[in-house]
């Protein structure tokens, strides 16, 4: 579950010591909250989703074209999220590394170098590659999902943004 510290941390990261205009001050709170929610959703979804994508690719070839279409949609959504801005307020660079990692993963999965181009232009591929290496380091089975997410969170500085809660149906 997300912790209140997540939005406060995101607020600090978004402002990042910049002197803000009055207008920027007025939107900082909602923008930072949206960034925190988005970053947590990416953290929870992307690394495990990549494993699932790899499994589909390896084991269910009949789904390849649908998978490529879905990946394209996700990549477009990720780009829009990565480049979201209100004035000078932007998504903090190191948080956007999740999407760079996903783009690098998609290129690797599909055997092309296409989705990572915008992230290279934004100088995010080194950070993305570090996350991708963590994905490759953790054993690819559901028992290690939490470990994978925690390791990504550590790399992203988000370890204090959430805590694991027991599952209750």
């Amino acid at each position, binding site marked *: 579950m997300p912790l209140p510290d997540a939005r406060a941390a995101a607020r600090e990261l978004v402002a990042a010591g910049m002197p803000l205009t009055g207008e920027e001050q007025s939107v900082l709170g909602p923008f930072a909250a949206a960034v925190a929610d988005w970053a947590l959703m990416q953290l929870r979804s992307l690394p495990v989703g990549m494993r699932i994508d790899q499994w589909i690719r390896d084991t269910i070839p009949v789904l390849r074209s649908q998978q490529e279409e879905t990946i394209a949609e996700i990549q477009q959504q990720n*780009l829009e999220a990565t*480049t979201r801005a209100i004035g000078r307020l932007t998504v903090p660079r190191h948080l956007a590394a999740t999407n760079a990692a996903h783009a690098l993963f998609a290129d690797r999965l599909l055997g092309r*170098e296409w989705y990572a*181009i*915008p992230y290279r*232009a934004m*100088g995010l591929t080194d950070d993305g590659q570090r996350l991708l290496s963590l994905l490759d380091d953790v054993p690819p089975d559901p028992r290690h999902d939490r470990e994978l997410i925690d390791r990504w969170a550590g790399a992203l500085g988000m370890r204090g943004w959430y805590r694991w809660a027991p599952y209750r149906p």
Partner: protein
Amino acid sequence: MRPLFVRIPVQSFDTALLPPEARRIGSAEFKDAVIRHFAREYLDKGETVLVTVDDEAITVQSLQSAPEAMAPVLELLNAGRIREALPMLESLAERFPDDVDVRYNLGIALSELGRLDEAIAQLQAAVALQPNHSRAWTGIGVAQARLRRTDEALAALNRAVAADPGDGYAHRNLGAVLSGQKRFAEALPHFREALHQLPDDP
């Protein structure tokens, strides 16, 4: 491949990817270098993209065909924004080397920027693709005339008039080059034809 559309805030671009003289965000050199960066990156993957850079953001969108790609470039050219259009035309010429409109417009843009020998090469590529392209012949003639290669200019402009006797611009430029040679009697019918075809041309 699904069409790409991405809008990147200018301050998010990694300027270390650009030549040192092009790293000041917002400068003309920055805009040119960013356009070339993306054009090259996607061209390497066999894709053509349209890149525009304004004071806030870089917009990159993929283009599937030469006519589709040319539409926004022509808007820039018609607005006199030739320097911005040039890198796009250069990438389009690499992507669509056999498209006569791309070659023609690249040639004219280069000519407008004073890069006359390069302009002539592109316009010659256009007439190689379409030998009766009177405007491309006119463009060659104008560029040759500006390089003071009068014989070559006259040859090209005569080809333009032969390709399209109703092309007022070809007549006007042929008349001008002949006048420059003090061949006024030969120039006169071309000026008359130009006036007939282009009565409102100053």
